[in-house]
């Protein structure tokens, strides 16, 4: 039981923190459902170097005991590690083109995920998580994360007043959120849910991204801005605390008892272009 943090949103969605749930009860509810959970991650250009550590840590911590399909979207499928995975888990390469700028690559993710769901993953998985590849699992990520539509609270803004959220503030953008509005600032590195919901969500985000492109504008934080706009009008059914989307460069406050998934410290300049 946690009394130091908010554990339910005003629309009655649970916020998942260590201490709010019993992993055994959840496992006993979810294991019998024979689920397959999908993970999408983009490893384009130099980002292929992150795949090994991502996968190794996922094998140790991500939904242990469940069937998992890792869909790695990459421009060089041959560079993917061939290390064997635990039983019931598969690695599938999804070829994608390499766009000219990292922003473009980033913004095209929604479209790629959406297309892949329609063509492939809707038949293979019931739940899908879309994660950044340049991150590592440090602690268990279990069925407490499963829900219809799941978003994660950005580690930089979880205890900061709404006025400071870096929403897109230009009204000409389709990702615009006016001052005084907004529930949380969600991170683009982690989102997911039922595969049908992820399909709808990625489609809508892709549409708003295209609308901006047609107007010659790019949102402040690329698809993260569009994700935040979408989750304001279509509230997630479950939120993950920053334990599930941590930034190792930040000092750990007492509210964060456990870091489950966090960024790999890297040289941004070197990796992006």
């Amino acid at each position, binding site marked *: *039981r946690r*009394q130091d943090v908010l*554990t*339910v949103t*005003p*629309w*009655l*969605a*649970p916020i*998942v923190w260590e201490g*709010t*749930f*019993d992993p055994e*009860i*959840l496992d006993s*509810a979810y294991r019998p459902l024979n689920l397959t959970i999908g993970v999408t991650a983009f490893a384009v250009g130099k980002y292929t170097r992150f795949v090994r550590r991502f996968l190794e840590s996922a094998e140790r911590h991500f939904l242990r005991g469940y069937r998992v399909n890792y869909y790695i979207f990459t421009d060089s499928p041959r560079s993917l590690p061939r290390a064997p995975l635990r039983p019931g888990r598969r690695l599938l390469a999804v070829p994608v083109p390499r766009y000219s700028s990292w922003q473009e690559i980033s913004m095209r993710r929604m479209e790629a995920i959406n297309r892949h769901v329609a063509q492939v993953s809707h038949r293979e998985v019931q739940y899908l998580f879309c994660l950044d590849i340049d991150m590592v699992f440090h602690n268990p990520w279990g069925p*407490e994360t499963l829900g219809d539509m799941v978003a994660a609270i950005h580690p930089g803004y979880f205890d900061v007043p709404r006025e400071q959220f870096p929403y897109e503030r230009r009204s000409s953008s389709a990702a615009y959120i006016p001052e005084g509005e907004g529930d949380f600032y969600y991170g683009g590195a982690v989102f997911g849910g039922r595969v049908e919901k992820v399909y709808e969500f990625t489609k809508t985000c892709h549409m708003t991204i295209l609308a901006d492109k047609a107007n010659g504008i790019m949102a402040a934080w690329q698809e993260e801005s569009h994700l935040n706009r979408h989750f304001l009008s279509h*509230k997630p059914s*479950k939120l993950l605390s920053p334990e599930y989307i941590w930034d190792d460069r930040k000092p750990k406050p007492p509210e964060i008892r456990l870091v489950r998934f966090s960024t790999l410290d890297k040289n941004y300049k070197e990796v992006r272009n």
Partner: protein
Amino acid sequence: RQDVLVLTPWLAPIVWEGTFSRDILNAQYLQKNLVTGVVTFAVQKYWFFIEGFMRSANKYFLAGHQVNFYLFTDNPEKISHLQMAPENHLFVIPVQNDSRWQDIFTSRMDIISSYIHSQFQHEVDYLYSMDIDVQLLAHIGVEIIDALVATISSWQVTPQHGNRAYEARPGSQAATPEGQGDFHYTASFYGGSVAEVYKLTRACSEGLMEDRENGLEAWWHHESHLNRYLLQHRPTRLLSPEYYWDTEL
């Protein structure tokens, strides 16, 4: 709310006043055009409660949303004209009077499941069963809408030598999970999606009939079966004892 438990160990929210914004929830539900049904029984002398229940429910239950009230009664002629809100409808369904107490509860689960199968599933998205001997004193809104919803009992159950003894517990204490992280739920107010309520009432009805064949019956058994079902199929949302406070306390 920091004084009460607002989340179960399986991450189902526990609805207490102060934990939610009805405005946000209403906005979400208006997008969806949902119809909710309420099933209630008024047999034998309970016809007396019909007017009070219907008047308060019509005013306070999911106000502003479409509600179908399904009133099962053996005294349809005793129902005076009831003025319903424009979004609401009242359907009076005559039933036979069961002379035995035990049968009243067993047949209720059975009646609900068969009517879901034959009728309600085509008419409503969500369905709630409520005892008729209550009056709503304040708004009960869309915060109750979820797949499988149960209300925490304001009574504590202490099994003693096969006879159940009920002890009263104040509201916030009642919402403490017992042992395994589970709660005691009241059979007086539960519901959810039609699919889930169908499964629940089927299971309980079958369990009760099996009990009867084995000569095991007691009036509280329908509540035990409900609780056993909810132990194995955990509710997706719990309502605090605020939602059904037994005035005998």
